[in-house]
């Protein structure tokens, strides 16, 4: 090997990989009002949605960089009348196309059009398995509708992938949720505990389950797995508040994920918009190549160079990249701090305090009224999280 080729090899190893995953949040509009919604609390201020042509440009440029998985989410993506056009363009460009929907607005006509457009996959989200609970959580009558959506999805030959967000108010219904998943022949079921961003952070103390609730739910999920074998693949995600190490958030900042918000902000993660002192570029003003490789927003927390103690000298820093920047900001008031979920963080006691509070039934924090996600509430709260 010559010196030159060694230098080239070293350079290649240090280069930034492509944004393999493109998440197109095509709208913040949504007919539901989930109390754990992951959209920014001030979403109602960002109404100026990208046009069809602007989305086409995003899709083209990201694909040219190497994006290959494309997710259409929201809000409720079905509220975009041009969703079929966007899917068709993504399909034509060679993406594997995924739709993340609550199922509202999905009917025979639209699912046929989506299939025709080349949609590869649909993930259906459920708020809970009983009508009463479902209505309580989303405050609209959507449960029967979801069942119909599930039937439509299956009848068009899609795998049935169901996602249910779990929290204090529905976690005790886990059997009913699993039964429902089985009834609709779900192939993959994700029972994901709420992550505390956006509206879920507003409602955090009311949503965090107790340890006992969690253990019960996990045990039942395991029993179900043993009894039913491989027919349904079950994933149970515990809230990171109960962990001592943070998750490897987004698989690393600016590593493989690229999110585009309804109004065209490019983000390394769909909640990063809340972070202070960072200008995230708009795709109306900057091409995707420059966004990904050169923008300050994407470079700031890439890799490990930006870290402070305790992360910077930590042997585990490549494992979790210091966890979530948003959680660090929300709890330690510093986006460059260690994720306070980590027990090496000097702010870990704040997580412990929230968890402890969740063990005391009926304490005042827990029984505060839930705030439903909605445009009116968004404008009233008028804050990023």
């Amino acid at each position, binding site marked *: 090997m010559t010196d030159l080729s060694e230098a080239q090899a070293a350079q290649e190893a240090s280069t930034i990989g*492509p944004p*393999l995953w493109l998440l197109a949040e095509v709208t913040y509009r949504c007919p539901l009002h989930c109390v754990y919604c992951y959209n920014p609390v001030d979403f109602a201020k960002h109404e100026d949605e990208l046009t069809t042509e602007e989305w086409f440009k995003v899709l083209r440029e990201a694909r040219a*960089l*190497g994006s*290959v*998985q494309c*997710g259409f989410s929201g809000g409720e993506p079905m509220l975009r009348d041009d969703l079929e056009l966007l899917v068709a363009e993504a399909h034509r460009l*060679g993406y*594997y196309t*995924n739709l993340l929907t609550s199922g509202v607005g999905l009917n025979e006509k639209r699912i046929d059009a989506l299939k025709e457009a080349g949609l*590869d*996959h649909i*993930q259906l989200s459920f708020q809970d398995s009983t009508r009463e609970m479902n209505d309580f959580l989303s405050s609209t009558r959507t449960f029967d509708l979801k069942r119909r959506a599930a039937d439509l999805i299956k009848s068009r*030959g899609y*795998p049935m*992938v169901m996602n249910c967000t779990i929290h204090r108010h529905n976690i005790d219904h886990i059997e009913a949720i699993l039964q429902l998943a089985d009834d609709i022949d779900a192939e*993959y079921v994700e029972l994901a505990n709420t992550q505390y961003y956006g509206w879920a952070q507003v409602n955090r103390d009311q949503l965090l389950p107790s340890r006992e609730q969690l253990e019960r739910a996990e045990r039942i999920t395991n029993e179900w797995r043993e009894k039913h074998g491989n027919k349904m693949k079950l994933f149970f995600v515990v809230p990171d508040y109960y962990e001592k190490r943070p998750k490897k958030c987004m698989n690393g900042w600016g590593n493989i994920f690229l999110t585009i918000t309804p109004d065209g902000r490019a983000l390394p993660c769909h909640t990063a918009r809340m972070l202070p002192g960072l200008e995230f570029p708009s795709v109306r003003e900057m091409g995707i190549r420059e966004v990904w490789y050169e923008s300050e927003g994407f470079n700031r927390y890439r890799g490990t160079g930006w870290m402070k103690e305790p992360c910077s000298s930590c042997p585990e820093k490549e494992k979790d990249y210091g966890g979530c920047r948003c959680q660090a900001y929300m709890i330690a008031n510093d986006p460059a701090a260690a994720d306070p979920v980590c027990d090496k963080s000097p702010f870990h006691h704040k997580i412990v305090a929230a968890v402890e509070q969740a063990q005391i039934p009926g304490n005042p924090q827990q029984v505060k009224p839930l705030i439903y996600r909605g445009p009116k509430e968004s404008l009233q709260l008028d804050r990023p999280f």
Partner: protein
Amino acid sequence: MTVTTASVPKIGRHFRIQWEEAQKAYVLLYPEGMVKLNQSAGEILKRCSGEASVADITADLEQTFNAQGLQQDVINFVELALQQKWVETT
């Protein structure tokens, strides 16, 4: 699951294989996920058309790469791919 030279593997339902220039590799795409294939996996999988048998695939590979004795490698890989549901056999 036993795979023989007569088995006819086909890319599994909900999976898609394609060449990705940015990664200089074949990738297998599926709902919300992706596997990057190494060269031999890519070369075998792209021949899993549902028409060619393991024997045909082996012969094709041996000819293309001017190699011999690949049969067991192909069988082993197709068995693994079956377990992962990357392929189905008919």
